[in-house]
């Protein structure tokens, strides 16, 4: 009887130990990225379909780190030309749905939009909205898988049932401030859907790692989206006032 209990309990114990370790890694990564304040960056997104045809979008991104909640961010489109000046404002929350507003310059309208459709593609790209939103520790449960040198591999299961994924396999680099080197995404059926690679890392303010290139490959459709980040700026002292609905209307200026 004792033997049976041990046999049954072993995976549970290991399960929780690995769960604890996975959570600790996610927390360590989160902690390593505390204190950057606010930043701005220019993005270029290039979309490649399975025949190799490409199209591109460019946008500006502003982010404000929040102490007790998820980050605030504003994305302004510069191209394609027909959506120039269109902007989104997102207040991410550690728990509960994010608040999101869209500004449509043609009719000068600010529209509150639902943030529940997170699995949909962002601007026709291979990035889903949830891939681009601020990564909060509370949004996943964790399981440590293995360590390969300085690489820590952790399985993450989204807590939100509306996520488009059953799990993500994330590779953290322990020696480089727990930065993420790549992420594998598994769809609702459990099949390997996409791989995201973070490359051309640079360190800012002597501490914070930011990838200059993010490449998302969809293994099922053979489409690819590459995000190139340019002109990262930190220490701009942005405040809540730069992330208001008035600021959203000014975003295209």
């Amino acid at each position: 009887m004792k033997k049976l209990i041990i046999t049954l309990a072993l995976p549970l114990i290991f399960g929780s130990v690995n769960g604890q370790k996975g959570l600790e890694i996610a927390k360590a990564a989160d902690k390593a990225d505390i204190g950057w304040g606010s930043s701005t960056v220019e993005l270029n997104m290039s979309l490649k379909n399975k025949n190799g045809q490409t199209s591109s979008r460019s946008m500006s991104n502003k982010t404000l780190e929040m102490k007790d909640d998820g980050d605030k961010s504003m994305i302004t489109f510069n191209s394609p030309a027909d959506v120039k000046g269109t902007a989104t404002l997102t207040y991410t929350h550690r728990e509960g749905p994010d608040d999101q507003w869209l500004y449509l310059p043609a009719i000068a309208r600010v529209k509150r939009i639902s943030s529940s459709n997170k699995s949909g593609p962002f601007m026709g790209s291979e990035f889903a909205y949830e891939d681009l939103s601020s990564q909060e520790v509370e949004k996943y449960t964790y399981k440590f898988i293995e360590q390969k040198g300085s690489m820590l591999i952790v399985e993450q299961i989204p807590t939100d049932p509306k996520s488009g994924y059953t799990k993500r396999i994330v590779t953290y680099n322990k020696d480089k401030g727990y930065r993420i080197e790549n992420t594998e995404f598994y769809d609702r059926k459990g099949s390997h859907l996409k791989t995201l690679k973070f490359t051309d890392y640079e360190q800012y303010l002597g501490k914070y790692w930011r990838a200059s290139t993010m490449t998302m490959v969809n293994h099922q459709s053979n489409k690819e989206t590459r995000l190139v980040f340019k002109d990262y700026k930190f220490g701009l002292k942005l405040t809540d006032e730069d992330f208001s609905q008035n600021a959203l209307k000014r975003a295209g200026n």
Partner: protein
Amino acid sequence: MKLKHIILGAVLLLLFSGISNAQEESEKLVSHKFKLELEAEYRYFYDKALYPGQKSNFPSAAITPEYTASWNKGYDVITVKPFFRWDVDDKRTHFDLRELYYQKAKNNWEVSVGLKKIYWGVTESQHLVDIINQTDAVESFDNEQKLGQPMVQYSRNTNIGTFDLFYLPYFRIRSFPGEKSRLRFPVVIEDDDVTFNNKSEEWHQDFAFRWSHSIGAFDLGFSNFYGTGREPIILQNQFGYDFFYDVINQTGVDVQVTLGAFLWKIESIYRSSDLQDMFAFAGGLEYTFGNVDGNGLDIGILGEYLYDDRGDLALSSAQNDVFFGSRIAFNDVQSTEFLIGGLVDMERSSNIFSLEASRRVGESWRVEAEGRILSEVSNTEPILYFFRNDSFLKLSVFKFF
């Protein structure tokens, strides 16, 4: 026309005084942005014209350049956005300064001086609380195109919401379609056919106030406008109808509650004037089935109830109507979208069905299609009945620079 020139001169003067002040105090780094939008459009009305002079085919073209100069990290900005449309109909051939303003933002406040566009409200089928700008009624069927409104706007963000104050020194009259045009009354309404019920006419000094706040799932707005009503008041006389501009006081409320994929929306106004008091309401919901096919297809359903206590004399003809519709977005590389809908009269047979579609072509072109079908318009419908043969199809091609 002279009055228009005076106000434009005054606005320009204000703009340039703004430039010189701002340049003294801030860094000299000015960034210039230029945008240009060209549109070729074709409208086809497939039913026989009811009134003499009306055409059925309307080729048209429009140009919208936009220039923005910003400095002080974008906290100071000057925007100039003229608009010109050429059309078969003389009244639809028109020029407007959509925007021409200087804006300064600092910390939690913002000031704008000049011609600008302001949008208020949440519902999709009617825009009741939206009152700052005059509607460019010859430009589009859905009344979403607006004329530039001269204003001084002060906006302040606080912990208890955003407060906006508007001083609106000059009123822009609404233009109605000309002789060759469809969607008009049997008699062409010239600009001065709509008489002012106050002595100061266009120069009545108007004021508006708005409070808006976002608390969790709630987006709330409360507004009050005192000044010349943007929408002419229609009164019946023994021969037909009279149109008046009157000084009104309008109080508006708009609420949106965002819960998961549900958007619940309410707009309501109470308007009073010497000639007419009125109450109107629009409310409903939008629900989106997101990413239904795993490839990004979003299917939204919309339903709104519309009430207007003016009944037959409501220009919108939405006195007791239900709007239902569906928004379909493919979220593909070309941003392909459809919006189909119908406005169904609860008391009469009249329906208006509509389809709007748009798709990007290449990196800098866009194609849009629109259809509005007026079906079984009841002859007891005093305004809409005049337009009963004016169902149309429209195709537009846009090029952006």
